[in-house]
């Protein structure tokens, strides 16, 4: 192959790469761009990719009230509380279970692993009906606590699945060495295992965070009062009520989306490793 055809081929490949990049990013860019456009530009008959006269008026409307009866930061707080709670509890549960699975051989170990697989495939959309009744009986509907418990259950199976690879990768000898030096099981866990699986914990945490942050149906079904709404519910509510106010809708969407994308990009490579770990055995 001549150097020239090689160069052409490379240019073609890079062109295709840029096209894929553009298609993947464009809808999100369009959202952000619309959020900064004044209304005259949003509804212009010749749409332009970037705002000619960028404005913060839509963000101002979203953040400083006017789209709902409750201030924006209440939704943000609700979403953040749920996401952080889900991350903390599910990471703890997952770390314990992942240690069990990666470090011990015990009866029902395989059963437990298969259960994790099956549970990840359960259509959680179907569970909304019985869980609605259960929480109603416990008087936990319309409360963030009830929702938190449900999110934890959804986040834990995947978190264990992902974390077990990280735990398994920590050399057993390090723990043995700590034990010989007189460290008890708790100390060994905290001082040896924990720092080494920390990167894995970060990756699984992001995943749990996104599960809770993005969740829609359960929050939509369980929550009644506006001051309990999470961001996605606020967004849906606002979208349903003023379907054509694209400026504020896109501003609110931007506020919901940007944190998730930032987190995602932060840990993307580790996360991918976790997702695909062991899919092909070397």
């Amino acid at each position, binding site marked *: 192959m001549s150097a020239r055809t090689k160069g052409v081929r490379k240019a073609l490949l890079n062109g295709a790469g840029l096209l894929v990049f553009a298609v993947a*990013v464009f*809808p999100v860019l369009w959202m952000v761009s619309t959020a900064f456009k004044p209304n005259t530009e949003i509804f212009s008959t010749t749409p332009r990719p970037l705002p000619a006269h960028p404005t913060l008026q839509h963000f101002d409307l979203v953040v400083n009230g006017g789209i709902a009866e409750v201030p924006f930061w209440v939704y943000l707080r609700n979403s953040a509380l749920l996401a952080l709670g889900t991350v903390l509890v599910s990471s703890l549960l997952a770390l314990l279970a992942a240690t069990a699975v990666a470090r*011990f051989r015990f009866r029902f170990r395989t059963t*437990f692993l298969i259960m994790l697989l099956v549970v990840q495939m359960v259509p959680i959309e179907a569970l909304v*009906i019985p869980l609605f009744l259960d929480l109603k009986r416990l008087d936990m509907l319309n409360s963030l606590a009830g929702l938190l418990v449900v999110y934890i*259950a959804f986040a834990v199976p995947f978190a264990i699945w992902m974390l077990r690879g990280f735990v398994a990768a920590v050399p057993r000898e390090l723990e043995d060495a700590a034990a010989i030096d007189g460290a008890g099981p708790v100390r060994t866990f905290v001082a040896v295992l924990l720092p080494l699986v920390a990167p894995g914990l970060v990756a699984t945490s992001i995943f749990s965070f996104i599960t809770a942050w993005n969740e829609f149906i359960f929050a939509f079904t369980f929550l009644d009062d506006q001051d309990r709404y999470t961001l996605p519910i606020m967004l849906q509510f606002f979208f349903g009520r003023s379907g054509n106010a694209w400026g504020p809708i896109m501003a609110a969407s931007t506020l919901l989306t940007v944190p998730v994308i930032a987190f995602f990009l932060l840990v993307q490579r580790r996360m991918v490793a*976790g997702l695909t*770990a062991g899919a092909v055995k070397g």
Partner: protein
Amino acid sequence: MLDTAPAVRRRPGRSAPSGRARPRRTRRGPRYGPYLLIAPTVVVIAVLMFWPMVQIAVMSFQKIGNRQLRGEPAENVGTANFETILGDPLFWQSLRQTVLFAAVAVTATLVLGTLVGLLLNRLGRRMSRFVAGGVMVAWATPPVTAAIIFSWLFGTTGGLVNWLLDLLPDALVGGGWSDYNWFAAPLPTYTVLTVCVVWQSCPFVAVSVLAGLKSLPGELYEAARVDGAGPWRAFWQITFPLLKPIFMVLVVMSVIWDFKVFTQLFIMAGMANRDAFNLSLYAYSEAFGSLNPKLGMGSAIALVLTAILLVVTAVYVRVMVRQGETA
């Protein structure tokens, strides 16, 4: 890859790190240690996932409406819910739309995702990382936002897609696009839904395929090239057979995700638009959609959906067990 330490990972007969400081020959740790560690998870999953599954099965034979929600005991109605569903044309329409959507969306996702994965593998290192980062953006977007963005792109006033279609020559795409409403009938609604869902799920396929490709030995392709095989043959004779396990898992997961898609359709079509229902939306609307909730009926539909997905899940679990994932 994370599974780089299989030798360290599973050494049968060795006991727990939670034993005493002495060499741990005793069976103390292993006996209940691991059970204590998994106990909280098992409780959470049993109470919040398995028990509700049982409840769905029980409730699908009951009538649960406003009176039952006020505290009266549920009324057993035998198979009446299922008879009602099977006699309801809306059920069959929802089922058809669910299956068709899944077929189209899964095919498109896998084909496009695989192509992107192959492309990422061919690109230079920095370019590959750059494009992968962009692709991640689509993956990370919350479903609610994605649905709203695509509603806006395909909107009637100021929507970008209608504007573009109007610019194209009428002979090619027809005229009068400027105020075309994509959400007035099921077929155009599902077209937008497909674009939206495929856009979001391709990245996962692409990245998984890329990870798989990276694990393949390059010599095989060298040999294929020497033998004169083009990229098409190289893919079907080398890449596909070797990555078959990955593709199996990706197909199963995509089928499950696309079968039960809810949030995006809910945002785009809403519950008033009964013609555009899929099974998830149909179940939800029966259960919660009116002032006269029918949670028993909703459960019956959810049970049908779950039963279909259970078959798919069984295939998935079998593949995973065969690959030694649960070892």
